[in-house]
C-alpha cells in the first residue's frame, strides 16, 4: 500500500519511454505524465489516514512529509503544464523532458518520505542525475554546459563526502535508521565520542551543499544563470522542499538539535547565508544570477523557520505558510520569465540588467504580469500587505524571544539590503524607453491563461493573510 505513489510514478516513466520508442508525440507524453502526477496526488490526499500510521523499514509518513510531497507534486504539475505550451512551439525532440522531470519528482518524493539512509542516498543521486540533464536541455550556450558540468562534479564530491559520513556512522552503530542514532548517542557518552560528531557534521555539510547555504553556495548562481526558467521553476522549489522535509524528520527523529553543538552549527550557517546572500546579490548585474544569490538568503530564513519548530507560538503554522510563500513566489517569478521568453524582452535578460533597464516598458506592454511580479517581489522582500512580512515578523520575534542577537542583526541588515534590491527591480518596470526592440509580442490564448493563473497565484499572497489571522 505504502509503495503506491512510487509505483505510479515509475509506471508513468516507463510508459513514457515506451511511447518515445514507438512514436514521438508531445501531447501523449504530456498527458501521461499529468495522469501519473494526478493519480499520486489523489492517492496521497484520500488515503492519507491509512498511510499515516503505517510502519515501514524504508519510508515514514507524517503530516509534514505528506504536506511537502503534495507541494512538490503540484509544483511539478504546474511546471509540466507550463512546459507543454512552451515546448509545443519548439521543433526539436523534447519528449525526454517530461521523463527527466518525472525522475526528478521520484527522487524528491522518495527523499521526503525517506526513513533509512540508503533511500536517502539513492534519492539524492536520482535528483542530481536528472538535474544535470535538465540544466543542459534546451540551451546550447557555453554557460549551461559549464554549469551542468560544474554541478555534476561538485555534487559528486559532496555525495562522496556524504558516503564517508554514512560509513563512519555505520562503523560505530551498525545500523542506518535515523531513529537508532538517538539511542546510540544516548548510549555512549557523546562528548567523548568525536567520531559520531564528525560523521553527522559531514552529512550535514553535504546537505548544506545541496541546499546552497552560504559557504557552499558557489555553483548555484551559475546554475540559476545558465538554466532555463522552466526548469528553475521546479529546481528552486522542489529541491529545497524535499531537503527540508527530510531535515524536519531527521531533526525530530534523531533529536540532534538538543545537542548545542549541532544547533549552533545549523544556526551559524543559516545566519551567514541570510546575511551574505542578500549582500552578494547587491553587486550582480544579471537578474537570474541576482535571484540565485537572493534565494540563498531565503533558504537561510527557511532553516530558521525549521529551527523554530516547537520553540515558539505559531511556529508550525508559520513554517507551513513560509514554505507556501516560497513556492508561490518562485513559481510566479519563473513562470512569468518563461512566458516572457517567447517575447523579445527575454533575450536581453541574460545581459547586463540594471544598465540597460531590461524590465523597462514591461508595465505598459504586459500590465497584468507586471502587477503580479510587483506583488511577488514585495512578498519576497517582506513588505507589509503580503504574507512575506508576517513570516519575517515571526522569525524576528522568535529570534528576539530566544535572545539570538547575531541572528536578529543579520536578519535586519539583510532585510534592508533585500528591500533595496527588489525596490530597484520594481522601479525598472515602469521606465519608458523608446526602443524598437521592445515592441509588444502578442501572447497566444494559452499564454494568456497562464498569465491569469500567475495573477491569481500572486493575489493569493495577499489573501492568505486573512486566513492566517
Amino acid at each position, binding site marked *: 500500500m505504502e509503495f503506491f505513489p512510487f509505483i505510479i510514478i515509475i509506471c508513468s516513466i516507463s510508459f513514457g519511454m515506451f511511447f518515445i520508442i514507438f512514436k514521438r508525440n508531445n501531447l501523449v507524453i504530456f498527458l501521461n505524465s499529468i495522469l501519473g502526477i494526478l493519480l499520486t496526488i489523489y492517492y496521497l490526499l484520500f488515503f492519507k489516514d491509512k498511510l499515516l500510521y503505517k510502519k515501514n523499514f524504508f519510508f515514514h509518513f507524517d503530516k509534514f512529509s505528506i504536506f511537502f510531497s503534495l507541494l512538490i507534486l503540484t509544483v511539478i504539475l504546474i511546471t509540466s503544464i507550463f512546459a507543454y505550451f512552451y515546448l509545443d512551439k519548439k521543433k526539436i525532440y523534447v519528449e525526454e523532458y517530461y521523463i527527466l522531470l518525472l525522475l526528478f519528482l521520484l527522487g524528491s518524493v522518495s527523499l521526503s518520505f525517506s526513513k533509512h539512509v540508503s533511500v536517502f542516498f539513492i534519492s539524492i543521486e536520482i535528483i542530481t542525475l536528472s538535474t544535470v540533464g535538465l540544466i543542459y536541455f534546451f540551451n546550447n550556450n557555453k554557460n549551461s554546459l559549464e554549469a551542468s558540468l560544474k554541478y555534476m562534479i561538485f555534487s559528486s564530491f559532496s555525495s562522496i563526502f556524504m558516503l564517508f559520513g554514512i560509513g563512519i556512522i555505520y562503523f560505530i552503530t551498525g545500523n542506518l535508521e535515523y531513529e537508532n542514532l538517538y539511542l546510540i548517542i544516548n548510549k555512549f557518552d557523546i562528548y567523548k565520542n568525536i567520531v559520531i560528531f564528525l560523521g553527522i557534521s559531514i552529512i550535514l555539510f553535504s546537505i548544506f551543499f545541496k541546499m546552497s547555504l552560504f559557504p557552499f553556495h558557489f555553483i548555484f548562481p551559475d546554475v540559476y544563470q545558465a538554466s532555463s526558467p522552466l526548469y528553475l521553476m521546479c529546481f528552486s522549489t522542489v529541491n529545497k522542499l524535499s531537503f527540508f522535509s527530510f531535515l524536519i524528520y531527521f531533526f525530530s527523529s534523531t533529536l540532534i538539535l538538543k545537542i548545542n553543538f549541532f544547533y549552533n552549527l545549523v544556526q551559524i550557517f543559516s545566519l551567514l547565508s541570510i546575511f551574505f546572500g542578500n549582500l552578494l546579490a547587491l553587486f550582480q548585474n544579471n537578474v537570474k544570477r541576482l535571484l540565485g544569490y537572493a534565494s540563498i538568503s531565503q533558504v537561510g530564513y527557511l532553516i530558521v523557520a525549521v529551527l523554530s519548530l516547537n520553540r515558539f*507560538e505559531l511556529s508550525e503554522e508559520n513554517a507551513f505558510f513560509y514554505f507556501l510563500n516560497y513556492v508561490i513566489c518562485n513559481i510566479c517569478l519563473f513562470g512569468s520569465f518563461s512566458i516572457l521568453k517567447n517575447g523579445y524582452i527575454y533575450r536581453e535578460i541574460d545581459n547586463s540588467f540594471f544598465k540597460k533597464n531590461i524590465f523597462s516598458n514591461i508595465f505598459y506592454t504586459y500590465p497584468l504580469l507586471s502587477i503580479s511580479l510587483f506583488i511577488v517581489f514585495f512578498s519576497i522582500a517582506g513588505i507589509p500587505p503580503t504574507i512575506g512580512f508576517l513570516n519575517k515578523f515571526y522569525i*524576528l520575534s522568535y529570534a528576539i524571544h530566544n535572545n539570538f542577537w547575531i541572528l536578529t542583526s543579520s536578519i*535586519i541588515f539583510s532585510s534592508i539590503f533585500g528591500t533595496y534590491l527588489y*525596490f530597484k527591480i520594481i522601479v525598472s518596470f515602469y521606465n519608458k524607453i523608446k526602443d524598437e526592440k521592445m515592441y509588444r509580442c502578442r501572447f497566444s490564448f494559452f499564454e494568456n491563461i497562464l498569465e491569469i493563473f500567475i495573477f491569481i497565484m500572486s493575489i493569493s499572497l495577499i489573501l492568505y493573510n486573512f486566513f492566517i489571522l
Partner: protein
Amino acid sequence: MLPFLVVIPLFGGIISWFSQKFSNKLPRFFAIVSIILMLLINILFFFNDIFQKLFFFNKNLFNNNFSIVCIRKLGINFSLYNDRFSLYMIFLTIFLGMVVLIFSYNENYKSPGKFYLNILFLISNIIGSFLSTNLFFFFLFIEIMIFPICFLNIFWGDNKIRKKNNINYIKNFFIHSQISSMIMLLSILLLVNYYHTINGVWTFEFNLLKTVFLNKDIIENFILYGFLLSFIIKMPVVPFHTWLPNTILYSPKGNSVDLIGFLSKVGVYGLLRFFIPISENIFHKIQIFMILLGIINVFYGTFMASIKNNLKHILSYINISHSGIILLSIFNLNSLSYEGLLLYIISSTISSSMLFILSNKIYSKLNTYNLKKMGGLWKVLNFIPGFFLFFSLSNFGLPGTGNFISEILIFIGFFLSYPKMSIFFTFSLIFFAFCSLKMFHRIFYGNLKNCLKNFDLNIFEILLILFFAFLLILIGLFPNFIFYKFNFLNIF
C-alpha cells in the same frame, strides 16, 4: 465610524484608479469626493456631543475606541483610539490633502488614476498611524507609507529638474526610512518580549505595554534609544536630515506638502505618544543633550537657509529648524511649552506647507527654483506675493499669528527651566527673520529679470489660502479654542 477614516481613502483610491479607464477627469473627482466624506466624518467627531444632542445620533457611532482581534496568540488587535491630539493631526492631514488635490487640479499627470491612488493611499496610511494604539499596526502603517512617496517621486517627479541623479536622492530617502523603520520594529519586538518575560502574556497593545517599568539594563536602554533614533530620523533632526531637501526638490508639484505636513509629523507624534510615556528612566539623562540638539538644529537650519539659492532648499531647511524647536519643546517637560507645542505643530505645518504650494505656483510660471533668476515679481503677479509675504512673516512668528503665540509659550516654558540657555536661544528669532526676509526680498523686489504675463489663482485656491490665513490669525488671537476639551495628561 473610526475605521471609516482609514478605509474611505483606500477604497476611494482604488475606485479612482479604475475610473481612469473611462475618462481622465473622473479620478480627481472621486478623490475629492472621498476627501470631503472624510472631512465630514472628522467634523462629526469634533463636535460629537453637540451633534448627538441635535440629531439624536446613536452614541456607539462615535465611540472613541475600536478594536478587532487579528492574531489571538500574539495579542495583535486592529485597535484604534481617538483623542483630541490625534483628531487635530487627522484634521490637518485631511485639510492639507484637500489642498494638494485642489492645487493639482489643473495639472495633467501622466496617468491620473494611479497618481490619486498613491496620494489617497498615503493619506490613509498616515491617518492609520495617527489612530492606531497597537504597536504592530502602527509599525505597519509607517512601513507602507514609504512606498507611495517613493512612487510619487519616481514616476511623477519633476521632469524638468530631473537628471540621472534623481533616483539617487530617492534611494537616500528610502534607505533612511527603511533603517528607521527596522530599528523601530526591533525595539517594538524587544519591548513586547520584555513584557512577555514579566507577565507571561503576548500583547502589542501600548496601553498595557506602557505599564512596564524598564530597568537600566542594556536591552531596556536599547529599546528606548531605538525608539528615539527611529523617530528622530523621521522628524528629521540634524545628523539624519540629508534625505529631506532633495526629496522635496524632486517631488511632484503637490506632493511636497504631504512630505512636510505629514511625514515629519509622524515622528513628532510617535515621540509624544510612544516614547515619552515609557522613557522615565533615561529622560533626565538625555534631556539636556536633546535640547542642545534642538538648538543646533535651529541654528544650522537657518544658517543653511540663508546660504542656499534654491527656493525649495531654503524652505526645507527652515522646516528642519522648525523641527528643532519642536524637539526642544518636547524634551523641555513643562506644561506651558507643551501647550505651545500643540499650537506650533498646527501653525508651522500650515504656514510652511502654504509656502511650498505658493513656491510651486511660482515655479509653474518661471520654470526655476533658482533665486538668482527671480526678482521683481511683485509687479507681475497679483495675489501670490501678498500671500507669500503673509505666510513667510507668520513663519518666523509675526505677532498676531499662531506661530507667535506658540513660540512665546515655548520660550516662556524654556525660560522657566533653563533661563541662561533660553536667553542665548532667543537670538535664533533674528536668524529666522533674516533668512525669510532675505528670501522674500530676492524673489519679489529688485529688477524684473523675466518677461511674464499676469496670472491669477483660481477662486477655490484663493478661498483655501484665505481660509488658512484666517485660521492662523484666529489661532494667534484666540488660541483657547484649540484647547476645547483638550487635556494634556491624555497624551501620556
